C-alpha cells in the first residue's frame, strides 16, 4: 500500500489578543494543532472528528496548503503542501461545507466549465466525470441556476462535483453534511460511499454528524485540544471505552424477582441487560419469561462513546 498522507509532529500556533484591563491587550499563543501524527494509505476512508475548536479544520488547511505549519512536517501525495501548493492542488479535491468554492453569480454549468480550464482537464475526461456526478447526485434540475439561488443541499452537491472534476487522488471534506436535511445527507453519504468503494480515492472527512462516520469510515481519528486521542477502528473505540450491546425487554406486567444481571426500569415493566460477547444466550434465557411483550437489541451508541471521549479530562 502507498502512503498518500503523512504528517509528523504537525503543529499550528495562533497568537490571540486577549483583553486584559481597559486598554491593555495581552498576546497569548494558542496551539490549535499540537503535534499531530498521521499516516493515511491509498483508498482509506478516514473520519477525522473532535469537538469544536479541536483543530480539525486547521489540520486540513495545513494538509491542503492553505496554512503554513508552525512546526512539524506534512506530505500529501509526496508533495509538501505549502511550497508545492499549485502542484498539489491538481491532485487533491477540497470541499468546505461552510465555504463555497463555486462562483456565486454563475450557474453550476459555467462554474464547472471554468474549473475545467483552471485545472486544465482534457475535455473528454471532464465530460465523463461530470456525466457520472450528474447522474449520481441528480444535478440536472439546477445546472443553469446561479449558485446564489441554490438551496444548501443543491449547492453541496455542486461543491462535491466541483471538487471531483479534475480526478483528485485525495478528497478532503470539511463538514460536508453540515446543515443538510436528511434526504440530502443520504444523497451525499451514498455518493461518497460509492466513491470510496472504488479504492482509488482517499477520503478524509471531518464531521460532527457521527452517522456520516458510521456509514463511511472504517478508521476514526479523534482529536481534542490539537492532539490525537484515538486512532483506530470504530470497534476499537467501543472496546476501549467498554461500550457494550444491551438487550431491552418490555413486559406486560411488572416482574417479581428480576433475573440475574438485569436492571429494572419503568416500575418493573422493563428489564435492561448489558451484554459482553454474544447476545443469543441471553435472549434464549429470556424466552421463557411470562408476559414478554417486546425485546430489542441496542447496538452501542457511538455518540455516547465520543461524548465520553470529549469530556474525559487529560486524555492521552
Amino acid at each position, binding site marked *: 500500500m502507498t502512503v498518500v498522507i503523512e504528517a509528523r509532529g504537525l503543529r499550528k500556533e*495562533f497568537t490571540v489578543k486577549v483583553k486584559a484591563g481597559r486598554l491593555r491587550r495581552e498576546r497569548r499563543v494558542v496551539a490549535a494543532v499540537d503535534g499531530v501524527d498521521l499516516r493515511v494509505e491509498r483508498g482509506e476512508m478516514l473520519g477525522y472528528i473532535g469537538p469544536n*475548536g479541536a483543530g480539525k*479544520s*486547521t489540520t486540513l*488547511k495545513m494538509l*491542503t*496548503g*492553505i*496554512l*503554513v505549519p508552525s512546526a512539524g512536517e506534512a506530505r500529501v501525495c509526496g508533495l509538501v503542501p*505549502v511550497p508545492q*501548493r*499549485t*502542484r498539489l*492542488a*491538481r491532485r*487533491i479535491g*477540497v470541499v*468546505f*461545507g*461552510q*465555504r*463555497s*468554492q463555486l462562483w456565486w*453569480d454563475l450557474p453550476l454549468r459555467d462554474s464547472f466549465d471554468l474549473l475545467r480550464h*483552471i*485545472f486544465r482537464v482534457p475535455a473528454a475526461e471532464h465530460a465523463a466525470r461530470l456525466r457520472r456526478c450528474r447522474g449520481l447526485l441528480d444535478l440536472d434540475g439546477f445546472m443553469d441556476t446561479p449558485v446564489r439561488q441554490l438551496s444548501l443541499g443543491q449547492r453541496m452537491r455542486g461543491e462535491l462535483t466541483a471538487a471531483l472534476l479534475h480526478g483528485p487522488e485525495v478528497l478532503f471534506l*470539511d*463538514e460536508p453534511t453540515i446543515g443538510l436535511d436528511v434526504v440530502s445527507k443520504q444523497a451525499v453519504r451514498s455518493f461518497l460511499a460509492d466513491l470510496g468503494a472504488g479504492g482509488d480515492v482517499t477520503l478524509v472527512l471531518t464531521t460532527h454528524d457521527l452517522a456520516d462516520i458510521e456509514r463511511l469510515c472504517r478508521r476514526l481519528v479523534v482529536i481534542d485540544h490539537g492532539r490525537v486521542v484515538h486512532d483506530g477502528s470504530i470497534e476499537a473505540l467501543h472496546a476501549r471505552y467498554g461500550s457494550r450491546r444491551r438487550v431491552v425487554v418490555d413486559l406486560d406486567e411488572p416482574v417479581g424477582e428480576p433475573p440475574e444481571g438485569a436492571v429494572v426500569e419503568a416500575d418493573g415493566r422493563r428489564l435492561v441487560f448489558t451484554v459482553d460477547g454474544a447476545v443469543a444466550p441471553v435472549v434464549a434465557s429470556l424466552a421463557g419469561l411470562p408476559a414478554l411483550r417486546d425485546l430489542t437489541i441496542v447496538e452501542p451508541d457511538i455518540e455516547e462513546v465520543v461524548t465520553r471521549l470529549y469530556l474525559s479530562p487529560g486524555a492521552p
Partner: protein
Amino acid sequence: MSYRASFVLELSTNVFATVMDVLTVLVLFRVSRTVGGFTLHEALLVVGLSSCAFAAADLVVGNIERIKFYVRTGMLDAVLVRPLGALPQLLLMDLPLRKFSRCVFGTGVLAVAAATAGIDWTPARVSLVVVAPLAGVVFFSAIFVVSAAVAFWWIDTGELGNAFTYGGRDFTSYPITVYSGWFRRLFAYGMGFAFVSYYPALALLGRPDPLGLPDWVGYAAPSAAVVAAAAAAAVWRVGIRHYRSTGS
C-alpha cells in the same frame, strides 16, 4: 455585464472623477502663472504621466483591494486550493471595464501635454515618453499590492492602504517642488514616487532638476519600478504565509 444600469452609472462617475483631477490642476493655474516653478503645460505633463500610469495600474491591479474581504471572511481558502497563483486569481476575478475610461482619459492628457509642452524630441525622449508611463504602471501596481498585502497582518486596514495608492497618485500629480521638508523626502525619494512622473517630465522637457539631482535620474523610472515590484513580490510572499484563515 449582468448589471447594465449600474455599469453606465459607474462609468460616468469614473470619468467625472478623472476629469476633476485634471480640473484641479487647471484651477490652480488660474490663480498663479507658475506652480513650484512649472508652467501649465509643463505641469500638465506631470499630471498626464501620473494619471495615465495610475489609471492603467488601477485597471489591472486595483482589484487586489478586495483581498481585505477575502482575508477577513476566509474566502481566500477557496483561492488557495486551486492550481494557480493566488495573486493572478485575485486580479482576474473581475475586469473592471468601468475603469477603462480613466485610462483613456489619462493617456489623452499625456498626449496633449507632450504635444503642447514644446519638447525637443530626441530618440531617447521618444522612448522615454513610452517607457515612463509603463514603468509608472508597474510602480503603482507594486504600491497597490503592498498596501493590499497589509491585510494579512492587520485584518481591517480600512483607509491605510488608500493613503499610499490614491495618496501616491495625488502626490505624483504635482511637481515635487511644491512639497517640502521630510514629507517630500519620504514620499519622493524614500518611497520613490518622484520617479513616476516628476523626473521623467524633467527629462522630457530637458530642464535641470531644481533640487540638484543629475539629469540621468529622469531615465531611472524603469529601475525604480523594478525595485518596487521586487519589494512588492517579497511583501506578498511573506504576507500570504501569514494568512490565518478563519475558524470553521
